């Protein structure tokens, strides 16, 4: 009421006082994160000591590294008793590590181009924000890559591709009538085309022909990447089919799938590679000889498919029963309900698992070195380490191999985590 109020009223807040030095900035962080208790302090010092001794041991080795030498002896001469790496081997044998020792050096551009295009083909599959039209290139890519890497006439790839197109066209024409009939007709049509196409290819095999590179000339990291990519791509559909078969209520089909999955998962990959190496040939008609790479691919696909089947089965089991019942109640048949209701959801859940299994597959491709194929590890253990020039340069070579695999596998697993978060937001 009265205008002259003498009592003091503060109009503005007092600004916050700065916290004590021990409670702010770097000091606070160090106190909380490194020295919060006596035990923690000890752990911090142990870790620091560990890092220090690692750096002291490794730094001169890296810094003194020789990048330019012809042989390991020249390396040692240059080092002159100092501790140091002989990275020169990576320099000198780089093509061997990447392409193997038989791939013609004039043709290195082909695998290079194929691997760049691989990234382009993978992009629309990995990132759903990219335009869907790019998927067309992904569909063409396998045939293109085959032509690029193995060479020969482009007609082989074109004919194989056309066969697939014919199969898909037939399927979509007849799929409205019956799934089984559509599959049967498309299979027949494709095979008929492939037989006809085979003759056409044989007639003129010089159109756009690249230099033939037989499978046994493939090697190095290219072989790892090739085996890993193909096995993963082929095993995903097979794995989904096996998972569906295992869930099926038809006992015979179910038991075939269960037997297959459990058998493959029960044995180490190396025994399957033995099968590919020494046994599988016995099961083909007499007189035919199948590439070792092809045989290994068959076994690796089976191996990966069994693991993917288990991941997908987990995804199928994670769906609530209501989804299956809802699909039934709106009158969808088995194929439709799987295609439109169940699989989209189940696969979404199992994508991270599938990616993990596939990274494992890529890592496991190194096992082919044990059946004396010259992949990255096989090249190192075989031609490079046993050569008199580079005898005894273990660290640099295995370190480089480990680094290559680390970069790829780590980025794929980071991608998988990113994808998991993306899908998480979708479900909300």
């Amino acid at each position, binding site marked *: 009421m009265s205008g002259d109020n003498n009592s003091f009223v503060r109009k503005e807040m007092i600004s916050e006082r700065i916290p004590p030095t021990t409670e702010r900035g770097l000091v606070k962080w160090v106190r909380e994160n490194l020295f919060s208790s006596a035990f923690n302090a000890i752990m911090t010092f142990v870790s620091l000591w560990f890092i220090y001794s690692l750096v002291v041991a490794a730094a001169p080795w890296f810094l003194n590294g020789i990048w330019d030498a012809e042989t390991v002896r020249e390396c040692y001469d240059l080092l002159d008793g100092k501790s140091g790496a002989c990275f020169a081997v990576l320099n000198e044998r780089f093509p061997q590590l990447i392409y193997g020792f038989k791939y013609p050096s004039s043709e290195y551009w082909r695998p290079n181009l194929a691997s760049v295009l691989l990234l382009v083909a993978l992009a629309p599959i990995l990132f759903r924000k990219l335009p869907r039209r790019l998927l067309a290139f992904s569909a063409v890519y396998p045939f293109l890559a085959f032509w690029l890497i193995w060479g020969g006439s482009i007609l082989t790839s074109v004919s194989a591709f056309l066969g697939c197109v014919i199969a898909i066209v037939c399927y979509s024409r007849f799929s409205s009538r019956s799934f089984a009939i559509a599959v049967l007709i498309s299979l027949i049509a494709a095979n008929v085309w492939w037989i006809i196409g085979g003759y056409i290819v044989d007639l003129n095999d010089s159109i756009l022909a690249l230099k033939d590179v037989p499978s046994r000339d493939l090697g190095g990291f290219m072989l790892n990447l090739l085996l890993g990519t193909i096995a993963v791509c082929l095993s995903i559909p097979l794995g989904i089919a096996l998972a569906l078969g295992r869930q099926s209520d038809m006992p015979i089909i179910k038991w075939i799938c269960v037997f297959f999955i459990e058998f493959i998962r029960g044995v180490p990959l190396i025994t399957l590679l033995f099968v590919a190496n020494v046994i599988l040939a*016995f099961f083909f008609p007499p007189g035919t000889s199948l590439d070792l790479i092809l045989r290994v691919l068959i076994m690796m696909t089976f191996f990966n498919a069994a693991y993917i089947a288990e991941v997908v089965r987990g995804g199928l089991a994670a769906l609530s029963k209501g989804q299956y019942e809802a699909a039934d109640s709106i009158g969808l048949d088995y194929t439709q309900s799987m295609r439109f209701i169940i699989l989209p959801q189940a696969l979404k859940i199992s994508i991270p698992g599938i990616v993990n299994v596939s990274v494992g597959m890529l890592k496991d491709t190194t096992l082919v070195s044990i059946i004396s194929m010259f992949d990255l*590890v096989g090249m190192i253990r075989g031609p490079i380490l046993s050569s008199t020039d580079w005898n005894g340069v273990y660290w640099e070579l295995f370190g480089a191999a480990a680094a290559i695999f680390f970069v790829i596998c780590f980025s794929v697993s980071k991608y998988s985590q990113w994808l998991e978060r993306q899908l998480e937001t979708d479900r909300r």
Partner: protein
Amino acid sequence: MNTSELARRDKFQFSMLLNDKRYRSYTFQFFALFILICAMAYLGKNLLENLAAAGLNISYSFLGEPSGYDINQRLIEYNSQSTHLRASIVGVLNTLLVAFLGCIAATFFGVTAGILRLSNNWIVAKLMMIYVEIFRNVPVLIWILIIHSVFLAFLPQPKAFRGENPEATMLWDAFAFTGRGFYIPKPIFNDGSLIVIITFILSIIGVFAFRYYARQKLYSEGKLLETRWTSVAIFFIPTILIYFALGNPITLEYPELKGFNFKGGIHARGSLISLWFALSIYTGAFIAEVVRAGIQSVDKGQSEAAGALGMRPNFIMNLVILPQALRVIVPPLISFYLNITKNSSLALAVGYMDITGTLGGITLNQTGRAIEAVLLLMLFYLVISLSISAIMNVYNRSIMLKER
């Protein structure tokens, strides 16, 4: 009219085999079986023709023939005159040995790293993250080869232990870590050692019986017995008493440097050691992630609720957190144990003679019996895998959440 009448009314037609849900599954199964049998018959025919063409047959008689090769790392008596079967058994035991050791060490590495990754010490947590990522993302074969060459390069050769001022010394005069492998004391069992061992086993059983009794007592009468020190006492005292009463029946044979090499004691070859270490540190990285996930999966409210009930911290850990975390941890842990067993087949890369190296390696190459040898090899791994997954299923059922 009910459904059975309806079913009787429409007559059976052939189109129903494909269009009627009741018959369609039989059609599919029939075709699946038919195709499977055809494929089997085709493959079998090819196999027989190929075998006939190569002049081979399927026979396991090679298992009874003398093997003619030596195995340096073995748990049972074996020489080059022993049969291929015995070589395979040596291999089986070697596989089981490295798998068993690997499981223990991998659990140790994994649990340590998993717990430390959750530490509130920033630098330790980051170090453990680096360990996990580096080991998970590089093929195990490369790790085995790298660690093998680390052992060869950094451990001293036996000759370094010689002389007045040796470059290397034995640990407590009992353990020698050399580039050729580890030498550790070997127990010698004299007369009466059997009694000591039996006493030891009985006291282990005694500990479990006592704990069971204590739990029953707790549930029925509400009395909490002291278990920790009593268990320790039951575990050690009878065995030690018997051991001294019988006059030291079990003695140790120490490795000694004789000439250029160590003699006596147990010699674990470098290949075994590096394979063991590589497998366990590689799998440990995976186990660390599982352990971390398991501990994080237990809701914080659980420990707060237990605290609100007035439980002491170690009771909270033992009775509330661990049982729930283990439910998440154990199933993947067992499948990692299985992975160690399967990955131990990579012993081939470092020359450790496990089953893959004996039966699938030298025996196969010497006899040329590829089909038989690989089949036996797969059978062995299958038996192990299936029995472990059977155990796992039993365990899973026993810890499954009891819901509705």
